[in-house]
């Protein structure tokens, strides 16, 4: 994930048709930046076949434990 900029947030907000003030976009960039940077630095590699519901398959293996 790239570092956040206020411009990026304004672009996503416009695409979502949600009004947001430029100063709020700057605040969001500051507030959310650390989480984004953490994930960017981790360079997560998710296996190709994994989908969101893979979580439930892992979770349900524990029912029999």
């Amino acid at each position, binding site marked *: 994930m790239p570092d956040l900029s206020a411009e990026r947030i304004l672009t996503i907000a416009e695409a979502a048709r949600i009004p947001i003030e430029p100063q709020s976009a700057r605040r969001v960039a500051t507030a959310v930046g650390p989480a984004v940077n953490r994930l960017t630095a981790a360079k997560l590699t998710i296996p190709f076949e994994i989908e969101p519901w893979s979580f439930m398959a892992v979770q349900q293996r524990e*029912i029999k434990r």
Partner: protein
Amino acid sequence: VTEPGLLTLTEAAGAIRNRQLSSVELTKSLLARIEHWQPALKALVRIEPDEVLAAAQDADAALASGETRGPLHGVPLAHKDMYYRAGKLAECGSKVRAGWTAPGTATALQRLADAGALYLGALHMSEFAYGPTGHNAYLGAGRNAWDLERITGGSSSGSGTAVAARLTPAALGSDTGGSIRLPAHFCGTTGLKPTANRVSRANAMPLSFTLDTVGPLARTAEDCGLILKIIGGPDPLDPTTSAAPAWDQARAARPSQGLTIGVPESYYVEGLAPETAKAMDEAIAAFQALGCTIRKALLPDQTLLSAAAQVIVTVEAASYHAPWMRTRPQDYTPLTRSRLENGLAYSAVEYLEALRWRGPALEEHLIAIGDIDVILAPVSQTAAPTIAETDVRGGPGAEAVIQGMTRFMRPVNYLGLPALVVPAGRSAANLPIGLQLIGRPFGDETLVALGSAFQAKTQHHLPVPTLP
């Protein structure tokens, strides 16, 4: 029975069942306690004294004629104001939902009613369950029964403080990023965040469809188990529960001897107040005395899990609220609106990567803990801070306090693990300190067994706050 309102849920239900106490007597006792505390605590946003008294009379009449409706027959309970009842108000702590009546009834509430519980009232909450402190500029801040100038924790603010003050024997809360565990810790109650997909979320106000969980705050682990046994299990209205196992009472009553408890060496040890570290040390000794094996736990990077959870919650919350953010943004309190705007920071690909990684991350966690049954960790670095020092309108320092407060929450939500908070100490200012027992997926019963054994040997869950 001296003061019925002081009984635990299990005790009260048993006393009614055995005809040592009537439902009306219990209800009147709780209403008297509410009348005493409510002006200062404002823990309830709506009370239904006439309706609940009538229901109590009906419950007593039923019992007299030999009819027992279930294990909670005649016990009044209040719940976070986000559990819908058909045709009744559910205002979710927000002006946006002021005057809104629900079209259906939450499965969790219906199951409690089917078990004989009565509806006492609706409890204070953070606006749309989106805040960890209990601040709510629309309703006024939640107030801690142990010190009215301190936070309750959120978002189940009213559930935490009302159970602490013995205004209700138990209450439903919800936990998406710590909203059961933080109020339990700060208010000195016991709280159980269940395994994800174990309790139906149908007709409960949503915040994040991936991470929301429905669970109880009560006085004891035993009471939490009683509630979870009733509300858990498959529900066609919430297909994520389709594989949820039935409650295993034998496992919930198992001896704690032989259980392995893991104690993290990193992350959960950072920034702890001395009194929190002391509570951890004393709890480790108590569990050793109970015959548990204590082992160091080397966990995967918790900061990554926390960051991924943040992506999911913020995007899903923004998605739910997008229609109102477009048309009535002024009706949100500024803090909630700014939190919702945080969801505009991520692309769809980034959100889905956070969602897809959840399975591999849980796999990695299970490999890391091996045969450890339960992880013991602090809930928060400190006991309850003041309402003023966590008010973000007061300056940038508040955000740092909140970050420290919530640091140990999100990894559990991301991995969908169950976690039980038990009171485990007191601060120098006599404020409660809780610890979290984090289980394996669907290991909720083991947590109840271990928490019950801990509470049988300790006194931290027993003190009752008094109104100054």
